[in-house]
């Protein structure tokens, strides 16, 4: 008896159908085998190995602290980040935009509003997939425990906008991290370039770990020589444009890129360090005077994704400024406006007086 909706394939001959049945049974056996259960995250942050055992909350000095030059805005939270590679391993950087991290790689990012609120954790598993988890700190800051898989909405946090903070669920993590060529978003050639952007919003002046140090310590291999000789830098017509494109790379490029699943607005905001100056040209061609189907009451009828010289007619700016969940960009992980970035983007669009020449 087949379940409703199923129909039997027509029989062609006894001999052939017997073979088909054997093949089909083999297929069924393969497809219905119980999948290996995915490893569960540890119940506490301590168990992930971030801290030296028996030392309270002293971060293991073997972990690499780092700070991307174009950080993600998260409602004004301050952040600390670490990466850990298994002993005797290194990152394969032969694909400059998609570094291959060894199995066992772990990364942590701590979010604070006066006190630590959450620490996010990802780990590369034996099968090559990534595990995502979030740990919520207690109010006394002595321990952090695993958050529910669906996350927590409206956690009371003094210092957060409106005193509320949302902890992402596992699918929220995957939504951003798995939209790019590789799920590690802040640890790459551009973000760790020693040629840092002094106008990048919310960035630390220095990173404890940068590209040259990683090469010198043998922690990355196969990095194209030219990226070491001339560290990645966003090509731009002005310092303002460099910072604006960097902000879009760090905050939007993990979804709006040429590598992942399609999204409705076909903007290419992720920089490609293998293209040199042509990377920015590719980004700008997807933005400047690009048609936009998005409409809102206070946008002119001829609005473009970025209308050079006309911030009021640029849907990009409108959507970064929106706090409506249906229209805001980025669509998740943000509740409070990034006013410094809005001022930067508006200044860039105002100063950007012309489109690119025809290619």
């Amino acid at each position, binding site marked *: 008896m087949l379940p409703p909706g199923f129909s039997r394939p027509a029989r062609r001959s006894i001999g052939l159908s017997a073979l088909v049945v054997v093949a089909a049974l083999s297929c069924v056996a393969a497809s219905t085998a119980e999948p290996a259960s995915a490893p569960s995250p540890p119940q506490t942050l301590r168990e992930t190995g971030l801290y030296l055992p028996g030392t309270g909350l002293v971060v293991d000095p073997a972990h690499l602290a780092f700070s991307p030059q174009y950080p993600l805005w998260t409602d004004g939270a301050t952040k600390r980040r670490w990466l850990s590679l298994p002993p005797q391993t290194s990152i394969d950087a032969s694909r400059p935009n998609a570094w291959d991290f060894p199995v066992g790689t772990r990364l942590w990012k701590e979010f604070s509003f006066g006190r630590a609120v959450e620490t996010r954790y990802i780990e590369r598993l034996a099968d090559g997939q990534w595990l995502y988890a979030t740990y919520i700190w207690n109010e006394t800051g002595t321990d952090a425990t695993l958050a529910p898989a669906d996350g927590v909405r409206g956690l009371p946090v003094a210092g957060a906008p409106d005193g509320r903070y949302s902890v992402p669920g596992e699918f929220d993590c995957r939504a951003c991290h798995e939209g790019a060529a590789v799920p590690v978003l802040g640890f790459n050639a551009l973000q760790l370039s020693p040629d840092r952007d002094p106008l990048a919003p919310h960035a630390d002046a220095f990173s404890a770990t940068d590209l040259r140090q990683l090469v010198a310590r043998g922690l990355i291999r196969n990095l194209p020589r030219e990226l070491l000789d001339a560290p990645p830098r966003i090509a731009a017509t002005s310092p303002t444009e460099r910072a604006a494109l960097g902000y879009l790379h760090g905050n939007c490029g993990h979804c709006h890129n040429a590598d992942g*699943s399609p999204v409705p607005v076909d903007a290419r905001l992720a920089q490609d360090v293998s293209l040199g100056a042509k990377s920015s040209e590719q980004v700008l061609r997807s933005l400047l005077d690009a048609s936009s189907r998005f409409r809102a009451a206070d946008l002119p009828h001829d609005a473009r994704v970025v209308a050079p010289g006309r911030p009021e007619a640029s849907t990009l700016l409108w959507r970064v400024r929106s706090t409506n969940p249906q229209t805001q960009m980025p669509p998740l992980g943000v509740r409070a406006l990034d006013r410094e970035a809005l001022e930067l983007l508006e200044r860039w669009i105002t100063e950007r007086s012309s489109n690119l020449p025809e290619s």
Partner: protein
Amino acid sequence: MKLSIAFCLGLLGVHLTAGSAFAGDDASKEARVARGKYLVTVAVCNDCHTPWKMGEAGPEPDMSRMLSGHPAQLKVAAPAKAPEGAWNIVAAPTMTAWSGPWGVSFTANLTPDKETGLGKWTESTFIQTIRTGRHMGRGRPILPPMPQPMYKNFTDEDLKAIFSYLQSIPAVENRVPEPLPAAAAKE
């Protein structure tokens, strides 16, 4: 001669094996699409994603526009005002536009039209959309009355079957508008 017979038998074996593999693939795909059709039917996707019309026996889904979402020509400029009393949700006669405290939601075109439907979607995009409750798995939240909080519990195999079926139905060109916020916005 013995070699020739063995060679012919070998060829026959290769032919039969390859043929059975292709037949198995076809049967498997056919079964998956049928399973998807069954799931789409009993999960009442047509109730909202197929525009309704007035038939001989009253309102019924217009299957000539099966699963093509809110008709583009049926313009909605602003949220509806709910009637007095215990009401807060208003639906268009097509059952494809819903006005409520969230604003106005329009049901999506689920046909495989390349520009206005799911034609450019991947199986992964579809699964992520249902799992996350976000447009294309990463964008804005999916709005009521889409029962995504229940549908996210479908198994991967169920969602793959549903996607296979949706990719097999006739494509309908119909660009569904973006949702309207609770405060009025123009189309």
